[in-house]
Every structure is written in C-alpha cells, then in structure tokens.
C-alpha cells in the first residue's frame, strides 16, 4: 500500500471513529446534567416521578457510557497509531489538556460507579444526588479538555517554530488559544441541547405510543424547557463562533458561505448550488454574513479568492453549515412554541403531528452535531495543524490501515446495533407504568422505602 493510500484510509478511519464516538460522547456529556436536574426537581418538589425519571435515565446512560468509553479509548489510541507524526510534534505543546482529560475521566468513572450502586443506600436522597455532581463535572470537563486540543489544531500558538523545531513552548498559552472560548462553549452547550432533545423525543414517543401517564408529560415538559434554553444558548455562541472564524480562520467561514470576493454588506446564502463561482437558487439574507462575521451590516468579509488554491477547504461544507444552522433554528422554534403553547394553552402542541416533530428533534440534533463537527474539521483542510502541518505529512506509513478500517467498521456496527437493542429491551421489559405501580405497592405494604428492604 502506497503512502497516499495510508493517508486516505487513516482519514476515513479517523472520520469513522470520531463520528461514532461523538454520538455517545455527546450523550455522555449532556445526560448526567439532565439526570441531576431531574433528581433535584424530584427532591425539591418531593415528587417520586422525577426521581424515577432520573433513575431510568441513569439506567440507560450506563449503556451509552460503555460505548462512549470503549470508542473513546479507541480514538485516543488511534491518534498515535494513525497520526504518529502529528502526535510527536503537537504532543510537545498540547499534551497538557489531553493529560488533564484523563483525570476528568477518572473522576467521572469513580463517581459513576458509586452513584449507580448506591441508589438505595442513603436515606437522604440529597446525599445521593451529591454523588452525581462529580460525574457531571467530569463529563463536561472531558469535553472541555478534548475540545481545547481540537481548538489548538485550528489556532495553534504557544511556541515558536525555528527550522522545523518547536522552541519556547508555553503549555498554558497553547491551551488558551483564540479558538478555545467559542469552541469549548459551543461544544458543551450543544451537548446539553442534544441530550435534552433526545430525552424529549423519548417522552414524546411514549406519549404517541398510547401511554398517557403523567410521568411522560412531566418528562416532556422538563426536557423541552431545558432544550429551549440550551438551543438559544447554542445559537448565540454559534454566532460568536462565526465571529471567531471571520477573525482567525476566514477561509473556513468563506468556504462555508461560498463567499468568493472580499466585500462589505455581504449576504448570507442558504443552500443553493454552485456554478463556477456563481451561487444559484440560494435563499439570500441580505447583510446577514457581515452581521455574523462582524456584527455590522456593512463590514467587509474576506473572500476565498484571497487564498492560494491549495489551501481552500472543500466547498461542500456549505451544506454542512446550513444543515447545522437550520436544525438549530428549527429546534428553537419547536421548543419555543411548545413552551409558549403550554402557557397559552394552545391545543396543537398536544397533537400527534407536533409530537412527531418533537420525536424527530432527537435524531435531528444528533445530525446537527455530526454536521457541525464535519464542518469544523473538513473546514480546516488541508491542515491538521493550521499553517504548520498538512494532513498527509501527519499520517502513518503503515500498510495495514485498510484492514483495520474494515475491522473497526464491523466493531462499530456491532456496538451501534447492540446498544440500541439492549436499550430497547431494557425499557420494554420494565415499562414505567409497572415500575410506578410496584413502587406504590411497596409503599402501601408499609415496607420502608429505600434502605435495607427485602
């Protein structure tokens, strides 16, 4: 296998592993927070339903964590296996957050073990809730640290390059690079948003499938409210991300917007097709690109023609960006209308079609996550470390990458199908109606709730 093939297959394998990991990782970041909120609401309102909600979410969470952990271990090692030259170079500057991430995992793993196995150990639920705090913190901080590494790839700093050698290295400066604030904030808040909408989708689905239990209604209202807050946050921080790009990676923004000539009063183009440098059939929003880039409708936005041809990312990222933004706007509307409808007693939010829309929101936000990452990563091409190292220079020279790709693809297929099957079976076998009935019977019989019953 020639080196070109190694590069190609390394890319495909990285894309595959990351795209698969990110689904579970996003759930891993967001769901602990949701569990925490539900359990907290349950304790505060003294409402068993919310506590049960937290408990059932936690049960499902174990399965997604497991897949998150094993695929994360895979990508962690693959970084060295597939991109040894990159890791050798970048490791000297950016190893710190990568190392700190393992502590975040450690912290999370320990307390997750404790949390899961102590549901009935404490008489005071608050103590049990307290154990979840380190889980949620650990998960969010692992996202923060890994995203810092990724931000560094987009805006490397904290060192000097002298004759191909890195000197004068400052690990903290490298961590706090210009890409870091917006990237970290956007990744974390979209993880919360996605988790909220996935859980909302489940509740809406149960309601559609004939259950009319108030448990699902409470779940739906809670998750939609959270989803609304986080999706508005995601859009605001997304807007800041655009401003970051305009300043530090103008080629990524220009490629996403098919913006060729540097000019002021730039319009935002949604969808459409490209004919040479001409954009056809697009939805044009006047001034919007100037506003996204610089908060000023007349500001000048740098166009693609300013860059050498071989440093322009693939132009299909336009569609990825549009997909992400469309889904973001759609979800703000769906959750906003739902929230408003609840207060105004609008009937349509309880209709079947609206519930189906909420169900669709779960997978859609996952698609937005994928589109966002693909946009951010492909938009960095041809660089692996912007302006310093190109992707082909970074890749392994090993000749067996293609075989490994097939092996891992099979693995992810098994894990993906396995996790869905196991989750479905888990909740089918133990529907919430029965669990609630069981608990009520237990209380009625006068057995002490929690503690050492049985």
């Amino acid at each position: 296998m020639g080196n070109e093939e190694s590069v190609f297959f390394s890319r495909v394998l990285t894309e595959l592993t990351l795209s698969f990991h990110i689904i579970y990782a996003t759930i891993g970041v967001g769901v602990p927070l949701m569990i925490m909120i539900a359990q907290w609401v349950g304790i505060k309102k003294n409402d068993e339903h919310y506590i049960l909600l937290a408990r059932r979410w936690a049960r499902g969470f174990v399965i997604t964590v497991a897949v998150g952990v094993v695929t994360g271990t895979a990508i962690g090692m693959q970084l060295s296996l597939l991109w040894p030259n990159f890791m050798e170079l970048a490791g000297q500057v950016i190893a710190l957050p990568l190392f700190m991430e393992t502590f975040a995992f450690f912290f999370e793993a320990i307390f997750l073990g404790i949390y899961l196995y102590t549901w009935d150990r404490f008489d005071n639920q608050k103590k049990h809730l307290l154990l979840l705090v380190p889980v949620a913190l650990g998960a969010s901080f692992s996202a923060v640290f890994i995203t810092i590494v990724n931000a560094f790839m987009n805006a490397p700093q904290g060192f000097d390059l002298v004759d191909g050698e890195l000197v004068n290295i400052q690990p903290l400066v490298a961590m706090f690079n210009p890409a870091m604030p917006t990237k970290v904030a956007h990744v974390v808040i979209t993880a919360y948003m996605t988790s909220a909408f996935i859980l909302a989708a489940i509740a809406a689905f149960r309601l559609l499938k004939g259950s009319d239990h108030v448990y699902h209604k409470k779940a739906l209202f809670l998750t939609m409210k959270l989803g609304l807050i986080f999706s508005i946050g995601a859009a605001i921080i997304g807007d800041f991300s655009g401003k970051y790009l305009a300043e530090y990676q103008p080629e990524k923004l220009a490629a996403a917007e098919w913006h060729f000539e540097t000019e002021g009063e730039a319009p935002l183009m949604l969808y459409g097709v490209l004919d040479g440098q001409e954009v056809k059939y697009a939805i044009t929003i006047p001034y919007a690109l100037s506003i996204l880039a610089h908060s000023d409708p007349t500001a000048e936005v740098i166009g693609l023609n300013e860059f050498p041809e071989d440093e322009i990312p693939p132009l299909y990222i336009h569609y990825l960006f549009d997909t992400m933004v469309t889904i973001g706007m759609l979800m703000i509307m769906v959750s906003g209308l739902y929230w408003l409808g609840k207060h105004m007693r609008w009937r349509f939010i309880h209709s079947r079609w609206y519930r189906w829309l909420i169900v669709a929101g779960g997978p859609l936000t996952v698609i937005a996550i994928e589109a966002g990452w693909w946009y951010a990563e492909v938009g960095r091409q041809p660089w692996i470390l912007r302006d310093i190292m190109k992707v082909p220079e970074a890749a392994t020279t090993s000749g067996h990458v293609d075989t490994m790709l097939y092996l891992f693809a099979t693995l992810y297929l098994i894990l993906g199908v396995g996790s869905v099957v196991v989750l479905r079976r888990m909740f089918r076998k133990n529907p919430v109606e029965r669990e609630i009935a069981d608990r009520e019977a237990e209380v009625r019989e006068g057995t002490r709730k929690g503690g050492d019953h049985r």
Partner: protein
Amino acid sequence: MSLEVLGITVLMTFLFGYIIVGAIDFGAGFFNAYSLLTGKEHILTNVIQRYLSPVWEVTNVFLVFFFVGMVGFFPSTAFYYGTTMLVPLSIALILLAIRGSYYAFETYGASGHKGYSFMYGLAGLLLPASLSIVLTISEGGFIDMVDGQPVLDYGALFTSPLTWSIVFLSIAATLYISAVFLTWYADKAGDRDATELLRKYALIWSLPTIITAGGIVWELRSHNAEHYNQLLGLWWMFALSGALFIGTVYLLWKRHNYGLAVWLLIGQFALAFYGYGIAHYPYLLYPHLTIHDSFTNTAMATALIIAFILGLGLLIPSLYLLLRLFLFNKDYVKGRKKDEHA
C-alpha cells in the same frame, strides 16, 4: 531525580496499576466463562459480579492514563510505537471494546446469552497476550528502520521464543493474580465454596507463572544481553520477589490470612515489575529510543507533573471512597446490602 525519570516512574506506576486491576478483571471474566462450561457458575458468578460491577470503568481509565501520559511525556514514542504497533494495538482495542461493552450490555441490559460470556472470557485472555507484545517489541530486534520509518518485522516477532514466553507469562500471571485476589474477596464475602474453588485455581496457576517468568529472563540472555546483565545487577529485587511468591503460595496452601497473601502478591509483582523496568533504563525501545532523547520539553514536563500532582489530590480521596464503599464494605461484599444499581 531528573524530570524524565520522574515521568517514567509515574507512568510505570499507572501501568502497574493497570496490570493488577486489569488482571483481576480479565481473569475474573475467564473464570466466570470457565465455570459456565463446567456447570459451576452458581459458585462464582455472584462473587465476581459484585466485585466487577462498580469498578469496570475505572480499570479502563488506568490504561488510557498510561498511553496518554506516555505520549505526553515522551512524544517520540508516538512515532516509533504508533507507526509499528497499528495492527497489534488495533486488535487489542477491538477486544477491549467488545469486552467492555458486552460487560455493560450483559450486566445492565440483562440479556444473559451464554455466548457473550464465553466471548468475554476469551477476550480477557487474548487481551493481556496482545498488549504484552508491546513489551516484547521494546526489547529490540523486531523493528527495522526503512527510509527513516520504523517497520515491524512480523516474521521475526512471531517466531521468537521470547515473544511466546512473554505471551504465556501474561496469561498465567493474569489468571494467578485474579485467582489470588478473588480467593480473598470470596473469603471476605463468607462464600466457602467460591473460596475453595478460587484457591484451587490460584494454586494451579502459581507454578506456570513462576516458570514462565524465569523463562523470560533466560530468553533475554540471548536476545538482549545488555538488558539481561542489568537484570542480574538487580538480582536482589528478584530474589525478594521470589520470596514473596513463596509466601503467597504458602498462605494459600495453609488457608491462612488471604488478605496478607494478596499484599504479598502485589509486592511480588511490584518488585519484579520495577526491577524489570529499572533494568530497561534508559531504553524505551532498544536500541532506537531512550527516555532522554524522546523526552518532551521542560516546560511541558513541568506542567504535566504539576497537573499530575493536582490530579492525584482529587483522585486519591475518590478512589479511597470507592474502595470503602464497595471493596472494604462488609455489608456490600457479603451481598447483605441490596444495593440496587440505578
């Protein structure tokens, strides 16, 4: 102590941690599968499940910590080992993934298919074998430099007796460590049948462990004389390690104080492991890579060590809490606390 020695000591400590907790985990999976095969599952499953369930994710983090730390402190290892180890480590990753996820699927999803348990058990044996290849390669002689790129010579690797001794040692040691630990755990749980069975396994696997360990030293004499001579220089560590081994076996034989037996076992492996590691100094990969020329810059090393110390301040109390709540909690171990998971 120079920064690179400090760095490698930290990493070795985590690797050692992984070897011990990983071995307990891998071996437990194997014994579980084996007991299914021989119809003795009712004896073992309970003890094994109670130990494994709350800690399986923690085990994995030890490994992640090791390889992330390795690339952090010694970035050049990414170049040498990363390029050459694609196949063996990918296989290890796949085994690890299958094992970890099926454990969760089985335990929490309660699918209860026997086939999974066998796969789980088998993966637990293949894993130490495939991970141990790294150790073999580090002895040198299997990597050629072609056009400035390291290339692994599979033919030499798979025909070398050294490779196979290390593979056998890793399997035997896994089962031995696991059996000794679980004997103690079962004893604490007051489960007589399980204790007896596991004690028997421990005694059975003690001999192959010590024989293969000796075999490796002997192989090294012809394979890597430099390492061999340095090992001889540290003979007292290995002698002490051997004495602790005898102590463990004696206690097991006499059915005496299994807790002490576990500590002696840990001491035995620690002495052998650090002895081996010290003798390896300064090479990370004979003869291409030493800890000095692969070391990261001082600024990064200092930052990593500070992060490490701060991290430990967070981890040690947490780990202590985990152990207290599960491993050393009488009610939990005995299964009297009906802690329902989620």
